[in-house]
């Protein structure tokens, strides 16, 4: 213990850099922008960049959700299934049987509130299992990932839903002031996340819980209530991401959101969010999303065949991790 403190006195340099870990991906983004510009003349056009943001907006919301949950020291793998189930179930409650619905005939303006409510309930169930039954968040949400996807497959019979209420697809397809509404929504929510986690007690409580939940409890943080709230907000954000995806694509396939969770974790982790909890920022996570979005766009413009994209993603993620590890100066957790 004391020998450790002795060692610490010799190595103060790397610690200072750690404070700027938030910004470690900014140079990477600059490099990617430069690289993109050389690859294709269309890359640096406003249209293309808006396109990148539009494509990433739904994924970004799930990254935001996962960031809140990871900072609190928990895990949620089931978010990607919620992206599919919440809009699918909400829509099936309002559309007629002929279109693949339940034929209950609820008014169609309820579809969006229902979608968010289904998300919130999924999160509440996750939180309930983890907090009341003291189960591991990893295993609970892994099971929930399968359960929630299974529900969607069961209800829809594995078919896509095409006949959607107009109000339901509006947010994902509309433009406000010339920019897609989903970019506005995602941008506002990220800004809210940055402010909440940086400047509000309840947001700082997430860091306290993720860093040392006993200490948080002793300081008067209502740990269980906050964690539960984080799971509910997280799943609600995932439902919103599903809503935006649905509007963008105009239909809900049975595997909407399937496989997203890997990209979500990659974005959060290369953005500096620790899997051990208590570390990382919403802004860092956002830079992680941007890196992944830019890489994807460059690969498309370069005409890389789809079969090879997966491999390139993986390698890029590893490289980004190594860069942030070197810049951050501390061992990756």
């Amino acid at each position, binding site marked *: 213990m*004391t020998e450790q403190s*002795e060692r*610490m006195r010799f190595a103060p340099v790397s610690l200072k850099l750690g404070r700027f870990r938030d910004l470690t991906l900014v140079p990477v983004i600059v490099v990617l922008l430069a690289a993109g510009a050389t690859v294709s003349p269309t890359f640096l056009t406003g249209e293309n960049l808006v396109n990148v943001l539009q494509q990433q907006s739904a994924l970004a919301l799930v990254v935001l959700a996962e960031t809140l949950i990871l900072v609190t020291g928990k895990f949620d793998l089931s978010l990607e299934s919620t992206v599919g189930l919440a809009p699918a179930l909400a829509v099936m409650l309002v559309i007629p049987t002929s279109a693949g619905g339940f034929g209950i005939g609820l008014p169609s303006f309820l579809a969006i509130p229902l979608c968010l409510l289904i998300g919130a309930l999924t999160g509440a169930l996750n939180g309930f299992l983890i907090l009341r039954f003291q189960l591991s968040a990893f295993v609970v949400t892994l099971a929930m990932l399968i359960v929630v996807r299974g529900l969607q497959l069961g209800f829809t019979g594995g078919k896509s839903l095409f006949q959607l209420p107009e109000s339901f697809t509006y947010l994902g397809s509309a433009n406000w002031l010339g920019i897609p509404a989903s970019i506005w929504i995602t941008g506002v929510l990220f800004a809210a996340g940055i402010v909440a986690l940086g*400047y*509000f007690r309840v947001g700082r409580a997430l860091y306290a819980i993720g860093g040392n939940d006993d200490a948080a409890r*002793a300081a008067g943080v209502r740990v269980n209530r906050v964690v539960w709230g984080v799971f509910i907000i997280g799943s609600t954000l995932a439902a919103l991401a599903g809503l935006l995806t649905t509007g963008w694509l105009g239909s809900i396939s049975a595997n909407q959101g399937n496989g997203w969770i890997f990209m979500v974790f990659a974005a959060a982790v290369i953005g500096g969010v620790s899997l051990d909890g208590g570390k990382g920022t919403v802004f860092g996570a956002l830079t992680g999303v941007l890196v992944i979005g830019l890489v994807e766009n460059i690969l498309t413009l370069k005409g890389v065949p789809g079969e090879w994209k997966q491999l390139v993603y993986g390698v890029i993620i590893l490289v980004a991790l190594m860069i942030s590890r070197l810049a951050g100066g501390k061992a990756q957790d």
Partner: protein
Amino acid sequence: MTAVEALDVTKRFGATVALAGAGIRVDEGRTHALVGRNGAGKSTLVSILTGLARPDEGSVLFDGEPAPPLADRDAWRRRVACVYQRSTIIPALSVAENLFLNRQSDSGPIRWRQLRQRSREVLERYGVDVPADRLAGDLTVEQRQLVEIARALSGGARFIILDEPTAQLDGPAIQRLFTRMRALREQGVTMLFISHHLEEVYEVCDDVTVFRDARHVVTRPVAELPQGELVAAMTGEAVSLGGRSDRPAPAEDVVLQAEGLTLPGHYEDVDLRVRRGEVLGLAGSGSSGKVSLAETLAGLRRAAAGTVAIDGVRPRPGDVPAALEAGLGFLPQDRGKEGFVPLLALSENVTLPVAHRLGSYGTVSSSRQREYANKMIKELDIHASGPGQPVGELSGGNAQKAVMARALSNSPKALVVVDPTAGVDVRAKEALLGAIEDAARGGSGALVVSDDLDDLRVCDRVLVMFHGRVVRDLPRGWTDQELVALMEGMA
């Protein structure tokens, strides 16, 4: 005037009775020690006095008034503050934020600049020399503890509980803590001090309360309770700690030898020889380099220059298996980190270094593991349900005994132990030191690396290190003052 009083408190956890009608009364402005063996109910009393647990029966009074409801954390914080045994500092947050955890702002957004300013004021008021914007994880253990004390007091409480604050500190840091405690007492702060080190109780406390087996035994001013009586109150019978002289004189042959060992930044040009049957002490403060030296002997570190010989063999430097093979037994400093695998059974833990010898062709014989574990359970008086119990479930003292059993498992020719009795009670201490002496009697040479005077008293002689160099070779018969002065470089 009574600052705090717990009356006839009973607390059960399932079938276990943690407190059975126990009570304590702490007078205002006094430093009150709470002592007792592991499991006496001290920790439970602390959680009840700080409002983290509700007593099943009995009541708690602050200044004669009933304690606030458990949910009202703010009211508790105004009455009592606690520096817990386990650090409640959050490493990834700044010092400022740790100081004002969950009260960074009254309502609305946090003003970071203002928060840092308030933190600087708090740190200054309590004389803690730490930058407010530093990450708490970058502080030393001592600094972290000072931040915890400052945080505790900044909540406005005039009563503060210090739960084993000295367990993680080295000698000089403990002295600095005591100076601070005395200054707080001058300011009228009431303190409840919990420690396993009885000499500390005599050094800083006015009154002492002893708990044994979940009950209150005695409360008396420290001056009226001699150490023998205090120990008797704790254990229910008298025990004596201290050098036994019934060991035969050490043999001539050297079992552990270091020559000219140097590791820049840690220690320089260290020579030492431990003879068969000898117990050699290696004393020094936390910055003396004694632990790095011990880790070098065990092969965990590699020295830049110099040689290590174990019973005449020179193991490859920086190679733990080679050191073990040469006949070294090692008890590491941090038992939680390097000492045992918490989920593995006692029998597996204690035979880790020798498992390959217990079976043939790479298999491990579990019956022979159990046999050895049972033998050690008996010899070291380990309180466990049996050899199959995971070590992580054992209490601190018993886990340490398990680590000692592991160090002894290969019948080492040279035994190197670091802080062997850190954070264990009087009984366990006696058993652990007895085991070291027994090893010496059985023909091992032992090196006891510690700054705990009780540990050093069993040694035949003590080498004192200061700033990486051996400054003195003390034969038996040293006085406490002499040794402490040498460790702190004041001689």
